[in-house]
């Protein structure tokens, strides 16, 4: 029909015809990027002689620290993709730790993990009731849930852990009795071989072996579950009808409703999953340390939320952000000042590369900012040889801030996020 060509001409000004819609990296590019990152890491490791940077145990430690944050972040992703802000992740995580401790010490770690999931989901459902059914402001409800979860678990801990059998098994009003070990998983055969390679301290090869070793050796089953959940989340949210409907609630619930999607139901589901994931994050803390402790979450729910925003509301991004956080935290906990010092060099090199890239692409101002930061960091690296212990603690937080501030943010926030939605109200 003739209209086709005509309407082609009416396309709004200057918008280049975008074909793929989203500009995504293909597998080859991703692999290339990973290789480049590894190379850089190896180079810095060799230059600074900080074996810790790529040691398999460092990577393992990073994973353990990243997983609870990542799970909370993933929980946040589910909620926010459905349009509900979830500042109550911390509270749901607390519920997760409590339930995991409570069931876990009696029926083993797997039952505990499941209970943690259920506990978190309960928190998610309360959030759903408040925000979806009653239309309460999302942040208000989230904060209330944090307070409520903390208070309730503290109150219940006394009844559940400081009494009867639990007391006899070592429970107190602040902690559960021991939860049994969940055992770990190693890829058979691989770990020894990688371990040997890592020992050699060959440039690049040993570093890669170290990192692979950390990812395949003595990995908690829950870490595997977490990794699977990230992949699953991607497939469910982006590759299934259910996920499409759920995301549409966060983008334009009015449109979704007009096509027969039950928006309330999907929001409820999303928040239940959100709470469940945060709860699993809590359960992870419990299974990993074999105990429930009051205050054990230590603000990880908030950091999870931050990593989700950092990760641009995508599972891959969230995983990366949580990974970055876990990596730097593990680095400072295990390696202390010297390891963090090596990180300066890494960051300086990264910034320099970014500056050059930006410059080539014409972003002069960003290039200068990154360049100056690179030089400053480099100078800092050259003139000092360790980082004071008091400063080391702040490494993950400062790193997060620097990364966010330097690398421009191109966030794709779900359009309807945080907004009230009432069936039949808005047009």
């Amino acid at each position, binding site marked *: 029909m003739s*209209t086709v060509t005509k309407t082609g001409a009416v*396309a709004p000004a200057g918008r280049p015809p975008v074909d793929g819609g989203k500009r995504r990296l293909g597998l080859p590019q991703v692999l290339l990027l990973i290789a480049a990152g590894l190379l850089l890491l190896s180079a810095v490791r060799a230059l600074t002689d900080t074996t810790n940077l790529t040691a398999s145990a460092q990577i393992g430690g990073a994973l353990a620290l990243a997983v609870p944050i990542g799970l909370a972040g993933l929980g946040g992703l589910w909620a926010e993709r459905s349009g509900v802000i979830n500042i109550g992740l911390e509270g749901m995580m607390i519920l997760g730790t409590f339930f995991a401790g409570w069931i876990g010490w009696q029926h083993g770690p797997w039952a505990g993990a499941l209970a943690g999931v259920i506990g978190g989901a309960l928190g998610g459902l309360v959030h759903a009731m408040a925000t979806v059914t009653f239309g309460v402001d999302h942040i208000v409800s989230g904060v209330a849930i944090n307070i409520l979860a903390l208070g309730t678990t503290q109150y219940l801990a006394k009844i559940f852990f400081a009494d009867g059998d639990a007391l006899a098994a070592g429970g107190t009003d602040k902690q559960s009795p021991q939860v049994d070990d969940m055992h770990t998983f190693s890829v058979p055969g691989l770990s020894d071989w990688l371990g040997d390679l890592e020992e050699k301290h060959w440039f690049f090869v040993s570093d890669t072996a170290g990192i692979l070793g950390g990812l395949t050796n003595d990995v908690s089953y829950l870490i595997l579950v977490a990794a699977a959940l990230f992949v699953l989340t991607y497939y469910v949210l982006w590759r299934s009808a259910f996920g*499409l409907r759920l995301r549409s609630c966060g983008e334009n619930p009015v*449109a*979704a409703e007009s*096509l*027969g999607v039950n928006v309330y139901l999907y929001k409820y589901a999303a928040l239940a999953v959100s709470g469940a994931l945060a709860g699993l994050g809590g359960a992870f803390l419990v299974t990993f340390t074999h105990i429930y402790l009051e205050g054990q979450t230590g603000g990880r729910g908030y950091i999870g939320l931050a990593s989700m925003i950092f990760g641009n509301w995508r599972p891959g991004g969230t995983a990366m952000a949580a990974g970055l956080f876990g990596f730097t935290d593990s680095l400072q906990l295990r390696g202390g000042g010297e390891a963090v010092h090596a990180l300066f060099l890494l960051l300086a090199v990264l910034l320099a590369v970014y500056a050059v890239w930006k410059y080539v692409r014409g972003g002069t101002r960003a290039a200068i900012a990154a360049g100056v930061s690179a030089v400053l960091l480099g100078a800092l690296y050259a003139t000092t040889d360790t980082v004071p212990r008091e400063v080391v603690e702040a490494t993950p937080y400062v790193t997060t801030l620097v990364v966010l501030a330097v690398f421009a943010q191109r966030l794709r926030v779900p359009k309807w996020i945080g907004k009230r939605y009432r069936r039949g109200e808005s047009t």
Partner: protein
Amino acid sequence: MCAITAPSSSSTAADPPAGAAAVELHGITKRFPGVVANHNIDITVRRGTVHALVGENGAGKSTLMKILYGMQKPDEGTITLDGTQVTFASPADAIARGIGMVHQHFMLADNLTVLENTVLGSEKLHGIGDAARAKIRELSEAYGLGIRPDVLVEDLGVADRQRVEILKVLYRGARTLILDEPTAVLVPQEVDALFDNLRGLKAEGLTVLFISHKLGEVLAVADDITVIRRGTTVASVKPADVTSKQLAELMVGSELPTPETRESTVTDIPMLRVGDLHLTAVDADGVPREVLDRISFTIHKGEVLGIAGVEGNGQSELVEAIMGLRDPDDGSIVLDGADISHAATRKRRESGIGYIPEDRQRHGLLLEAPLWENRILGHTTERPNSRGMLIDAAAARKDTKRIVEEYDVRTPGIDVTAASLSGGNQQKLIVGREMSHQPKLLIAAHPTRGVDVGAQADIWEQIREARREGLAVLLISADLDELIGLSDTLRVMYRGRLVADADPAAITPEELGSAMTGAASGHLEDDTAARDAVVDKPAAPDTPGAADGGQGGGRTR
């Protein structure tokens, strides 16, 4: 008005050959708190026809259609489809019965692709993957929609969005299509294309329910017309039997005012001079693109400069650059001799720019704030709103009362929130506010969008009056009749550039429309062929046929 029959007796007048009617609405009543949106409505729609619904703003057309689509539940009345009585609990039920609806306001998720928007809710049909993609391509081809399934809706212009909406309905295999004001944002050529599509659908036996405020279009495409006034059906007519003037009077229930003659008030004192304005913007993916390319024009005191263009061609950005909401890369903006190219927005407003934004709810109002606070908005630093650094609430309230009186804002008081006013009344409040500060320059973007005929005439009158006193106006509108009728000078904007100019006294909406699609450029007056046909068009907005101009609800993304 010979052809008009009482609605009650007309229901079976045109018995379709193939048995029962496609849609029969009987005795539909719908009450909202304090309003009866529909009252005892009866409509019969024959299969394989285009059935138009016309009526004033707020007459209850959309409500009725939402009831048919299962989005609202009627308080009373029955719905019968092909002879079977049905009840719908949700749109899903209606969709299952072969009903599809294109809403007055776009129902699309910007961050999702066309494919995703299309399959949403009907994933069972063809999945969400390649099968669905193939089906979309197939439909797009069959109906000439020209749709690419993997584009983000965000990147589409209004016309494309419109087609996506239609595709959504077709994808679900709808046999009955409801189109609620599908033409409000389209240029004439696009409207023609749409109508071709509709005729195609009709030929395949589909039934179309069509709502429009543009009576010319209605007469051109409809097989039957039902007129709704204040929630009830007042007439059912055949297009052959009425003129658009008669139709308009049926809608309004009284005679329309006669047009007023135009007189030029243009002076040669320049008020706004825009020179070589250049602006690049970075889109969501971080790719910079030119949105304003060397824009130059001058508006004199007492002159209305109209800018025509398909939405998304830079008009919004131009307005924002003049208002100081975007900082131009290059070029100058001179207001009454003072260079304001990089001045702050507040400074510009203080020096005499009045602003009627295109999206009143996003840019013109604080919806949750009371009317009197909305009266202060935008003029915080000016009398009577403030004294020194303090807000003068008493004076502002008093002045709000004045505006409510003078501009006929229908509201129970000045303490209700702006959200509780209807769109037309919200608009009147904004116009009143902006006019209350004796602007030198008024920037009016779609000033009558979604406003009904009466209020529309009032707003035009306000603008004319101020113009007579030397006001310069930059008018942006998708309503070509309004543009032609109100402007002293016309420019056409296309892809960020002013590509053509025209004399409003000598141009038809069709010519203007074709220039808007980039098909014509330069000075459009030379088009002699249309000259004669155009003679009595200029004052379009005021002519009775003008009811065309009463474009209902502005489309918001």
